[in-house]
């Protein structure tokens, strides 16, 4: 079953190059993605705590880099998964780190999955397409009940 409406993705990422790759990949897709970008953890946290903007945009999926400034991705992940309003939203950790402590810590803090960023641009674009295809076309997201 596919989503009929807009697919809202929250991207928490400070690297402008990575933001461009991810946004371009989503825009070139045939699906209707709406990407909301936060370049630091603090603004992202404020967004999730501001119920008006958060409820209006109805985010389906969070793509989270671990090394964003102000509040780190690790802290933001913990916050999202400890908060009853946000813990159900799937969080895809997308990080350059292949370090097993980062991977384990992310899963212990209930990241829904951990994916490393490829260095090659085509591989990166391909991974973004696989991520969105998996989460929006294979998986049932919690917001699905509000969309159907």
């Amino acid at each position, binding site marked *: 079953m596919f989503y009929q409406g807009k697919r809202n993705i929250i991207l928490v990422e400070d690297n402008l190059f990575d933001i461009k790759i991810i946004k371009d990949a989503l825009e070139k897709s045939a699906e209707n993605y709406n990407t909301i970008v936060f370049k630091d953890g603090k603004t992202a946290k404020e967004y999730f705590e501001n119920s008006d903007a958060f409820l209006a945009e109805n985010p389906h999926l969070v793509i989270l880099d671990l090394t964003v400034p102000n509040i780190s991705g690790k802290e933001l992940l913990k916050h999202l998964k400890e908060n009853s309003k946000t813990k159900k939203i799937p969080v895809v950790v997308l990080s350059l780190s292949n370090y097993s402590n980062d991977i384990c810590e992310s899963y212990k803090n209930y990241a829904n999955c951990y994916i490393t960023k490829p260095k090659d641009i085509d591989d990166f674009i391909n991974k973004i397409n696989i991520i969105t295809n998996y989460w929006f076309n294979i*998986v*049932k997201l919690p917001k699905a009940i509000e969309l159907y």
Partner: protein
Amino acid sequence: MVINETENSIPTHKSSSKVLNILLVEDNEGDIRLTKEALKESDFESELNVVKDGVEALRYLHKEGEYYEKNLPDLILLDLNLPKKNGIEVLESIKMSTTSSSNSDILKTYNLYANCFITKPVDFDDFIYIVKCIEEFWIDVVKLPSLNK
């Protein structure tokens, strides 16, 4: 990961050399057979262990009795409608979380920190396809945690 019944379909598949230890918690013989066949057809190596109710799943994961020497799985495919203890109760137990106030299975499972919720396709080809998509994503794309950490 939670798999529940209904329909669906989708993408491609790649090869991998990892041996993945999968625990399938499923009481329906037909679905067990389909999952085995789908994994057999894939070009990656896996070890599939099957338990048929929620109590056995927890005994397996706690390495009780005959499961003492079993390795913990890399991935759990968990049906929700299980005898003795249902999938939600198993999830509650393994993720050690609080109960959800929502009536929806989807919401409940995400609130209990399931990694994802997938509906079981009724159609055979779709079923094979979904299992392959799960493989592709969790084996080729995702980094899983090492179990000794």
